[in-house]
């Protein structure tokens, strides 16, 4: 196996003391920020992006791998110990997890989440390491029209899947595409939509967009309707499981992994659908004691969705690394991190920067193992984090958001842009527009434009060039399906 050999090389890079230290910093920061209420994985990655500004690329990605997986772990701790609905991907975990915690089984809920995440993460990362080179091989023959069709598929899928209302998903996507248009056109050097503000010529940096929409938007939203009662955190000791918990957990872990990985890899898949499917599946398969416990805190209902969640996180990296295609908001921010270092993920990345890719994949394994070691004994410490008084928490989030935006180019104009995007993020939350399509549209939009123009240049202006390859036809048909299906479903229901 060639890729296993390359993976071993990756391990030698990831296991140097310096890189191990970066991985440790990454998982610790990722878990800490991920545990904070109101902060999902995407915001965790966005807020911590500035920390890696001056770190060499290989180490930065190792740190990022840690932050990415750490943010996932942290999110599940929050949803188990805090009895309030959180962001969508970990909401399913809260269904059974929080009820387990209320019944005095918080330690077991956290343990099955942590161990399940570890197992799912490890299997899924292995699948990623095996699948990625194969897909990269196929993708190398993709032409501009295929890439454009792929981008269109990502746009439509993410807009229609993540929102109950397609029109709201598309509105969010459009807002992101417009933000992506701002600045100098890469091919002709013409300024577009800059309103004559010189600071906008380079476009709006993705850190500002992500931190604005996620962090500042969230704080404004929280400010508008903050809970004033003190947080209700379930106390917990060291996370552990007994024999029967293991017996009840291992099958859901594997089933969750099997659901999570492929869904994560699909455009618009994300973690929401597989966690939900895993929950439904476990509930249906439950027999005996588990059947009685479902709805009151069944361990299967935590084990499956948590495994699905982490497997999906690894699955998302398949299209990201092999095609340069982000399928979730978090992946979009990771893509931006790559671009910051002048790297374009895609089939060429495996040829041009094998050290970096395989080092990154190896460090995903390392980070995953570190998280397990870190999280089982440290559960009580993370539970304390949940007690941070909310005024300080949200004031701190804004301070860090401002720091991230300001550190880019020390320009106050960036802070104003950050605030405007925050207002937009507030409005989107208030009216139920999903944020992910906007972030994906902003980052993928410019790429889609370049590929479209290239394709049409090849076809000498003939638009049928866009549907001249079977790959492009399949992708575009699927896009159409993603838009039409919800409409059909609504008509049928009536």
């Amino acid at each position, binding site marked *: 196996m060639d890729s296993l050999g390359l993976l071993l090389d990756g391990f030698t890079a990831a296991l140097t003391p310096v890189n191990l230290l970066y991985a440790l910093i990454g998982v610790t920061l990722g878990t800490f920020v991920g545990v904070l209420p109101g902060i999902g994985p995407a915001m965790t990655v966005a807020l911590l992006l500035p920390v890696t500004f*001056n770190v060499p690329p290989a180490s930065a990605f190792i740190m990022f791998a840690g932050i990415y997986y750490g943010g996932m772990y942290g999110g599940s701790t929050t949803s188990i110990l805090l009895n309030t609905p959180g962001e969508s991907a970990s909401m399913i975990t809260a269904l059974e997890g929080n009820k387990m915690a209320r019944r005095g089984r918080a330690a077991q809920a956290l343990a099955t989440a942590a161990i399940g995440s570890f197992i799912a993460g490890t299997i899924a990362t292995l699948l990623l390491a095996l699948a990625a080179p194969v897909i990269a091989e196929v993708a190398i023959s993709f032409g501009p029209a295929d890439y454009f069709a792929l981008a269109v598929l990502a746009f439509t899928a993410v807009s229609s899947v993540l929102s109950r209302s397609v029109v709201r998903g598309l509105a969010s996507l459009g807002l992101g595409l417009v933000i992506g248009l701002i600045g100098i056109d890469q091919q002709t050097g013409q300024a577009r939509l800059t309103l004559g503000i010189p600071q906008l010529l380079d476009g709006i940096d993705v850190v500002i967009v992500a931190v604005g929409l996620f962090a500042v938007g969230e704080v404004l939203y929280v400010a508008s309707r903050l809970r004033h009662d003190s947080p209700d955190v379930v106390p917990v000791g060291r996370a552990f499981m007994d024999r029967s918990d293991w017996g009840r957990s291992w099958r859901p872990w594997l089933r969750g992994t099997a659901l999570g990985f492929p869904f994560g890899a699909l455009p618009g898949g994300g973690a929401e659908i597989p966690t939900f499917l895993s929950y439904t599946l476990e509930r249906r398969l439950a027999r005996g004691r588990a059947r009685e416990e479902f709805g009151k805190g069944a361990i299967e209902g935590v084990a499956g969705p948590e495994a699905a969640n982490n497997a999906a996180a690894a699955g998302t990296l398949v299209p990201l690394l092999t095609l340069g295609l982000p399928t979730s908001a978090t992946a979009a921010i990771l893509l931006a991190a790559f671009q910051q270092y002048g790297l374009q993920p895609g089939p060429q990345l495996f040829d041009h920067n094998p050290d970096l890719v395989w080092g990154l994949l190896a460090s995903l394994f390392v980070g995953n193992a570190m998280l397990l070691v870190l999280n089982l004994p440290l559960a009580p410490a993370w539970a304390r984090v949940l007690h941070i008084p909310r005024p300080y928490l949200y004031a701190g989030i*804004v301070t860090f958001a401002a720091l991230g935006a300001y550190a880019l180019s020390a320009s106050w104009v960036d802070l104003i842009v950050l605030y405007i995007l925050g207002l937009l993020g507030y409005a989107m939350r208030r009216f139920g527009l999903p944020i992910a399509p906007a972030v994906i549209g902003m980052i993928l939009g410019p790429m889609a434009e370049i590929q479209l123009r290239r394709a049409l240049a090849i076809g000498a202006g003939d638009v049928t060039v866009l549907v001249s390859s079977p790959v492009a036809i399949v992708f575009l048909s699927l896009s159409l399906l993603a838009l039409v299906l919800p409409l059909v479903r609504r008509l049928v229901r009536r």
Partner: protein
Amino acid sequence: MPDRELNDPQARREGGGPGWRNPELVLAAAVLGLGAFVIIGTAGVTTASSALGLGPRFFPFLVGGAMIAVGVCYVIDVLRGGHGDPEQSEDIDTRTPADLRTVAIVSAIFLGFAVTVDVLGWITGSALLFFGLAVTLGARRRIRAAAIAIALAVGTHLLFVEGLGVTLPGGLLAGVI
């Protein structure tokens, strides 16, 4: 097209209501307006007359057109009584009406920070930002809030300027640090 009723404070009141009284209409109209803006705003971009006719205006035209279409559907959806679900989050109480006064104060503090940070410097500016926001969001013990604000400001300065080599303005304290 929605009319000027939108600026009427009555129409923007919490809870929405049917059709044109729903505050979501503002957002829907903004999507529509932004689509038009993209097309008009890029109309002035001089097209470098390439032989293939695909200048910098083509893609914005597509995006703008699509946004107008989506915006029209969105406005119709809102007028017909459709509404999105406010996002859930750990610290959000979706049952209470929006407290727009706090949002306004938070906004004022942030914008104040944005325009003064170059002069005040990171440490002074961010300490004031943190303190102001914490008190606005309900921190009762002001001395503690101030202490945390100063510690955070100095800490981030040390971490980013000394540790990570990022440039932040010294401002008022430029000579001291």
